[in-house]
């Protein structure tokens, strides 16, 4: 094995130096899941990344800057949480991959901020000690000091600093914004301080395993140019998990560091080492973990008494869990909670919805009064205000839904739901960790699909992704709400339940129930890669921080409004043109007919009408089905625009009234019945109408196969289910 000058050179070139970076200090936040990296990131950068009380809420890399009074800037990278540098799930792989890039001299940070949960030292410091192997100064942000203090846990900061070879230890509580000034000055100082000792690992590897690992460590040191400490650390990891070798392999494929020959050498060295270790009855997987944990435990000098005391102390969380995760009351509470949330979406939102409706109606009438009649006024009132306004009405409902979901996550309840449902989830081919993605699917499929990254088995992750779009997302809510509000009578069932609320819950149940069935079916056909397991930390319950809950609700609300502002506005305008042109002189029209039929939109709608007629849909809904492919809620604005153009010049149309009063010109009967409304809602429960979801599924599964499959199965389901509902309903004499 010869020395590789190219690798060596690049390594030197990119080595850490402050002067050539224009005063920017590059830092990376690394830590265990749920240790508070993102909370620190948000306070430092003033950005609004999602923080929560659920392990693994950050599943991608995020960048931000923090300006200092000196004019310098701290660049921050927020990485997903991980327990170690030997990755298992996809989000952990992101961190390990990032590390390999740094090791190989690709933009390494000047300082690593290791975020440590002070109330849980040993496990957090295990990762910290791995970080110090890199030869980059490490600042420990000792977060959640409030919790450690409450547990009466005393920590000697200077001991910690010297024993672990850290640049600084900063006690802080990110949620109270405590300790940030200290952290910033520690980062500045660390940026100028020397790197940690890189001559050897802090712990000794016993002779026998060391002998077997020597060739691997030698290879890393001589051929790749690692420091001695890093070489041994990587050797330990390489034999522990095959994923570490895979990282080397994929980084080669991406045109970087190791060439093919070197990679081949590495693989054969690895296999020999594993074989020899096994031959000596030494377990290669547990080597690093046991040596390092032993070392960490020794450094912390915890007495058996303290450990036992800590184990037997019943925390508040445990007391709460006696009820919330109790074998019988636990699931019962969960189901009632869901019912409460969906019921409140309908009841609490009514008042603000009326305000918004009244506001837009006043706006439309005002515009009608101010502007002279003509094309521009018509476009504004019928296209813009009518289209966008019809969607904005549903903002309160979406905010309420997001509010409750955020509360469940931030309080720490969501991981308990994963615990309670893992058994059921595995029965249907999913995973306990599928619960959070599926629940967030009620808000929006896009973050939900990304959240599946924490599921460590590919089969269950893919299965979860495939059924997420069946969870009724908030974009369907406007469609359901419109149809229910217009066609489902306001009656009470059994005295207490409102029929409208029950219908809504029914739609959610239909989607969720079908998701369960589909998951069971898919699990029979998706091939497994590796075995599945469920190990999940249950974070302590925490009073949700209103600041962060409100921020989360605000972010979703803003996204919804901007979405309405962009896609819906654009589609409403285009649609207005299509529905208005070509203009036909009303004199040339047969009586009882409207020029909209001969417009472009009318022609398109009438063309597809035969296909959707068996489902009970007419040409107007047909246009809506096409436009709603951009986003589901567009159906509502489409219907609004069409009715506005149809009733042109008579002020803003109330969509609910318009749909209720729409009559078939030939028969004189109402065009839409409750049966049509249900058929349409069922169609929307299943139909694959969201471009953005397909883009993200393509991205996450890295193929076209799965998004196309998803589209096919969902469209098929939608058509068949609606057909059954409408035709079956007619046979039974409804509608």
């Amino acid at each position, binding site marked *: 094995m010869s020395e590789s000058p190219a690798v060596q050179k690049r390594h030197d070139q990119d080595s850490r130096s402050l002067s050539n970076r224009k005063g920017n200090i590059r830092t990376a936040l690394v830590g265990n899941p749920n240790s508070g990296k993102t909370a620190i990131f948000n306070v430092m950068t003033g950005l609004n990344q999602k923080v929560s009380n659920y392990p693994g809420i950050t599943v991608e890399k995020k960048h931000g800057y923090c300006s200092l009074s000196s004019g310098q800037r701290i660049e921050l990278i927020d990485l997903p949480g991980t*327990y*170690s540098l*030997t990755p*298992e799930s996809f989000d952990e792989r992101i961190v390990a991959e990032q590390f390999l890039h740094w090791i190989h001299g690709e933009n390494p940070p000047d300082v690593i901020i290791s975020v440590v949960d002070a*109330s*849980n*030292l*040993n*496990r957090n410091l*295990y990762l910290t000690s791995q970080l110090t192997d890199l030869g980059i100064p490490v600042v420990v942000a000792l977060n959640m000091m409030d919790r450690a203090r409450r*547990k009466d846990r005393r920590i000697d900061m200077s001991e910690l600093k010297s024993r672990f070879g850290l640049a600084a230890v900063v006690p802080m509580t990110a949620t109270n914004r405590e300790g940030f000034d200290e952290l910033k000055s520690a980062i500045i100082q660390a940026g100028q301080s020397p790197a940690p000792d890189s001559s050897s690992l802090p712990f000794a590897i016993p002779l026998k395993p060391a002998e077997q690992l020597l060739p691997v460590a030698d290879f890393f040191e001589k051929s790749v140019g690692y420091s001695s400490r890093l070489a041994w650390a990587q050797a330990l990891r390489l034999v*522990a*998990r095959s994923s570490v070798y895979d990282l080397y392999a994929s980084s080669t494929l991406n045109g970087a560091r190791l060439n093919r020959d070197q990679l081949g050498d590495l693989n054969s060295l690895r296999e020999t080492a594993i074989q020899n270790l096994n031959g000596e009855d030494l377990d290669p*997987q*547990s080597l690093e*973990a*046991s040596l390092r*944990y*032993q070392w960490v435990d020794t450094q912390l000098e915890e007495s*058996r008494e303290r*450990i*036992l005391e*800590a*184990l*037997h102390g019943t925390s508040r*969380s*445990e007391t709460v*869990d006696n009820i919330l*995760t109790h*074998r*019988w009351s*636990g699931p019962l509470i969960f189901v009632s909670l869901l019912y409460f949330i969906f019921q409140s979406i309908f009841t609490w939102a009514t008042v603000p919805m009326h305000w918004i409706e009244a506001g837009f109606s006043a706006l439309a009438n005002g515009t009608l009064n101010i502007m002279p009649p003509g094309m521009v006024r018509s476009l504004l009132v019928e296209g813009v205000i009518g289209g966008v306004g019809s969607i904005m009405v549903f903002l309160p409902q979406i905010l309420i839904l997001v509010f409750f979901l955020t509360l469940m996550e931030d309080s720490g309840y969501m*991981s308990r739901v*994963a*615990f*309670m449902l*893992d*058994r059921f989830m*595995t029965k249907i081919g999913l995973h*306990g960790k599928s619960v959070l993605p599926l629940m967030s699917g009620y808000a929006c499929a896009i973050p939900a699909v990304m959240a599946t990254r924490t599921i*460590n088995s590919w089969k269950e992750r893919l299965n979860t992704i495939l059924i997420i779009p069946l969870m009724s997302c908030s974009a369907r809510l406007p469609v359901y709400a419109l149809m229910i509000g217009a066609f489902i009578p306001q009656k009470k069932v059994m005295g207490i339940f409102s029929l409208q609320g029950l219908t809504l819950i029914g739609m959610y149940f239909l989607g969720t129930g079908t998701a369960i069935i589909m998951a069971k079916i898919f699990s029979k056909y998706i091939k497994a890669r*590796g*075995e599945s*397991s*469920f*190990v*999940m*930390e*249950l974070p*302590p319950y925490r009073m949700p921080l209103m600041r962060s809950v409100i921020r989360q609700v605000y972010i979703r609300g803003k996204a919804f409004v901007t979405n309405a502002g962009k896609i819906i506005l654009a589609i409403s305008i285009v649609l207005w043109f299509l529905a208005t042109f070509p203009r036909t002189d009303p004199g040339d029209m047969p009586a009882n007919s409207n020029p909209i039929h001969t417009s472009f939109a009318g022609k398109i709608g009438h063309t597809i009408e035969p296909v959707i007629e068996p489902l009970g849909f007419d040409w107007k809904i047909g246009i809506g089905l096409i436009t709603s492919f951009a986003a589901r809620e567009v159906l509502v604005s489409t219907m609004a625009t069409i009715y506005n153009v149809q009733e042109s010049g008579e002020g803003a149309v109330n969509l609910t009234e318009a749909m209720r009063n729409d009559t078939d010109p030939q028969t004189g009967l109402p065009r839409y019945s409750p049966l049509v409304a249900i058929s349409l809602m069922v169609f929307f429960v299943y139909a694959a109408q969201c471009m953005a979801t397909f883009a993200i599924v393509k991205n996450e599964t890295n193929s076209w196969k799965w998004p196309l499959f998803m589209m096919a199965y969902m469209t098929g389901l939608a058509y068949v289910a609606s057909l059954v509902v409408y035709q079956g309903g007619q046979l039974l004499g409804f509608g």
Partner: protein
Amino acid sequence: MRRLKRYRKRLRRNRGSRSRVTSTSYSDGATDTRIANITQLSPGDTAVIRSTAGNKELKARLLEMGLLPGTLFRFIKSAPFQGPVILKIRDYYVSIRWADAANIEVEIAP
């Protein structure tokens, strides 16, 4: 009828696993330590991890999270129908699937 069969099967399985709980006396004879797997513990039991068998990935994951041989922990509870178990270990609570926990052999502290 089928349900009865299934019930009998479960009963047999349970009996089988119980019998694996063996008593060992150490040379000093003073302490009596029971060896079991995690799923056989009762709520409130304190035990020490002895070894982890089975799935490689799982083993590595458990080690990284600090579930090493020699580590003390307390068994909190398990979800019904052989759902996951909850342990308190190293100042935190962790939930492990029943089948995975069955691979972890422990020694119950006297």
